């Protein structure tokens, strides 16, 4: 493949954001649109003031042109994130969060911050969550086992972060193990 060196290690966050933008999200359109066929499917019709489900990329596009309001997903609220944060801090495992929560929340906070309540609190909660989970990942990596590793409830960004190191490390561990067992 002809990617530059820096991109060969793993997927980049903007790419993950792009993939995450295919998720459906609810909007309140301000303009009317008929059921239109796009490459990934047919969406619409948009009839204000009824809500409609559209892909995230389309919602962002409409929002930037001031043609819709975005309804925040129910996990992007102070109560939900607070409860997850408490869970994160008290239990050793990772708490359940939507798989692509990092990308979706970043995009929504950038574009539709007026449609979300108490955005500064949410931002700080998200930051806390990230740091707590990152701390756990760091500890977990020390116990790297060559044969199996199960980390449940990691989000896609975090997996992406760990992946290059992890794959490389597992390879070396396997190598070492093989060498060790052949010597015996």
């Amino acid at each position, binding site marked *: 493949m002809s990617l530059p060196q820096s991109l060969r290690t793993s997927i980049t966050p903007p790419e993950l954001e792009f993939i995450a933008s295919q998720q459906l999200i609810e909007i309140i359109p301000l303009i009317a649109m008929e059921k239109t066929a796009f490459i990934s499917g047919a969406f619409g019709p948009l009839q204000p003031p009824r809500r409609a489900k559209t892909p995230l990329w389309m919602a962002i596009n409409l929002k*930037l*042109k001031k*043609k819709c309001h975005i309804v925040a997903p129910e996990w992007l609220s102070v109560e939900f994130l607070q409860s997850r944060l408490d869970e994160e801090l008290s239990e050793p495992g990772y708490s359940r969060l939507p798989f692509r929560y990092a990308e979706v929340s970043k995009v929504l906070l950038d574009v539709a*911050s007026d449609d979300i309540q108490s*955005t*500064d609190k949410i*931002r700080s909660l998200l930051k806390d969550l990230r740091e707590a989970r990152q701390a756990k990942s760091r500890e977990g990596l020390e116990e790297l086992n060559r044969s199996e590793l199960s980390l449940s409830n990691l989000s896609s960004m975090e997996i992406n972060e760990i992946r290059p190191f992890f794959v490389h490390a597992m390879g070396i561990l396997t190598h070492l193990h093989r060498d060790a067992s052949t010597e015996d």
Partner: protein
Amino acid sequence: MVYLPPPDISRNRPSYAEAYGKILKAHRESPLTSASSVIMLVAPDVDALCAARMMAELFRQDDVIYRIMPISGIAELERVRDELITYNELHTLILFNMGGILDLPSSEWFGDFRPGMSVHVIDSARPQNLSSLFGGGENGERIIVWDDGSAERLAEERKAWEALMYEPEPDSDEDDSNYDSEDGFNESLEEDADEEFEEGSSGGRKRRSLGDGNRKGKRRRTSEDHPRRMSRDERDAHMARLEKHYMAGTWHGQCASGTIYVLATLLERADIDLLWFAVLGLTFQYTTSRISRDKYDDYQSIYSDEVVRLSPPLPPGERNTASSNPDDHGIRTTDELRFMLYRHWTLYDAMFHSSYVAGKLGIWKERGRKKLTGLLAKMGFSIPQTQQPYPHMDMDLKRSLVQKLDDIAPEYGLIELSYPSFMKCYGYQSQPLSAADAVEGVSALLDLAGGVKMEVEVEGSRNGGEWFGGGKVWEIHGLSTKRRWAVEEDRENIPPNGQNTTVASNVKKTEGENNADGAKKEVAWWIRNFWVAFDALADIEALKHSLNLSMTLHRAIIRQGTSIIDKQDIRTMRNHRVVVLTQGPDLPLFSHPGVLSRLALWLVDALRDKLPGKVVSTRTKRKSLPFVVACLNEASNLYIVVGVMAATDFGDVRKNEFGLAFLDAKERCNARTRHSSFDTSILEINQADLPVFLETLCEGSGY
């Protein structure tokens, strides 16, 4: 329909929204739509920039592809027009702050374009050309002037114009005014300004071209022998009416960005960002003395209602001067003090550099400076405090500043120090920025971002600081990393702390004069400035960066202004005052028309109380202060001349009659001149012709 009334006046007639709808329709239905279908021509001033930005935003929301071209003056407009006529896919042309005075339906301008094309003119300068406003027919229909209601009052003029236009059979001695094509720095620059006052259109009619040099002697031919349906008296009356319309001098109507804001409201798409640009346009008009305080107050109250309408409600008890949360990008109304950029440098400096205070206290003398420190001391501000940059001043002093000023300043003759204005919050990214500061920053960028090397003070370098003071060369924000020149001219002069910015190596900011790098494309300095300023309108970091530049500019203006007053360089002619700058450290700086106008305004403000007003105009009996400032551009051996007609009261404006006076004088002494910008009171004249020109200016009828 050739002119569009604003929506509150037009009940059944089409207004802005329909015109906009027409643009959209043409864009969507035309098979040839491409990137050059909608072109916006923008004059280089802050108001036009804001208006263009707003229009661009509206277009972007409607998926219309557009193109913006900066135009510096009439010559440039002619050149671009010749280029545009070859574009087949062009169907909409929008002119911001230019072309109002030009006779657009004539074949000399836009008469020859294909019929489907329309030209929208959004110009704040008045008076406007009557045939653009009222002309009918195929040529006339395509020119659409977005008006702010003043055209409604021109009913009399309209009748007069129509009467003269559609009069029966012409006589054979009709005068054709010749339009010399003007290019670059050509010497035969006679008639380029004449088209502005042309009011005829398609041929065969008697024309009265005002101020045309060749036809000085040919007045209206007597025509008693031809049977006319209109008597001589009527004709005279009509002519007089038209003359009054054109000869009254120039003034300004609603700012272009205000017009676009009205459009946005009609389309129900007004929001805080668009409102901010409208506020900037209005503040620009006020701070450059284009509109009077009363008009400013009217518009300001409208806009502050809009702020309330468009902003989410503030929680009660919220302090009005800071952003409430990181996503807060709203606008707040505040009272702005008349000091130049006072939130960004020391209080003493801000008062020192504001022309109003300078005038009242006489800052150019030592006595005046003492008075200033005395005033500050009386208000309870100690000298070290006032020498601190404003953000570092004590909080309680800052809060009490406005109050104390109101109490104590009237003793020194400083009344009306504050005026209501706005400021925009940027979340936690930076402190809120006031409208006046933003306007200062952007206009400094427009004038000076490239082409002149400006040294900017580094904060903390005064009073010995930690290091030995010094300045660093101002460079365009964000551009510096791309330019690592080998030129090391100033390397010795970088003070030890000059490296604490993001630029590691020294950068010589000479984009306008591309000396070393032949591979780089040569771009006119004003085009580059235009785009830098355009980008800065939305980028708070670039805007803050530009405030440094603006401060340096003000320092230079003060230096020059005080030296002029000290040396008593102002010559008083019969009817106006003249200053000629031929030498000085800042001469290349002042050869920019924008900067020179600022100097003129500063001088006027500073000397307002010291000089008696004169009754200059033949029409009104009001006194005014006419000022002419000329500066030598050594590189091209031209003088830039700026004429300013100021009112005797602060906050008032007069119609600027220098445009006509200049043309008059020029034709009488046959000077070689050129109008380089859209403002008719700014002129470039050959070095040798200046003295004669100034003399004829005095002899002129009333000037």
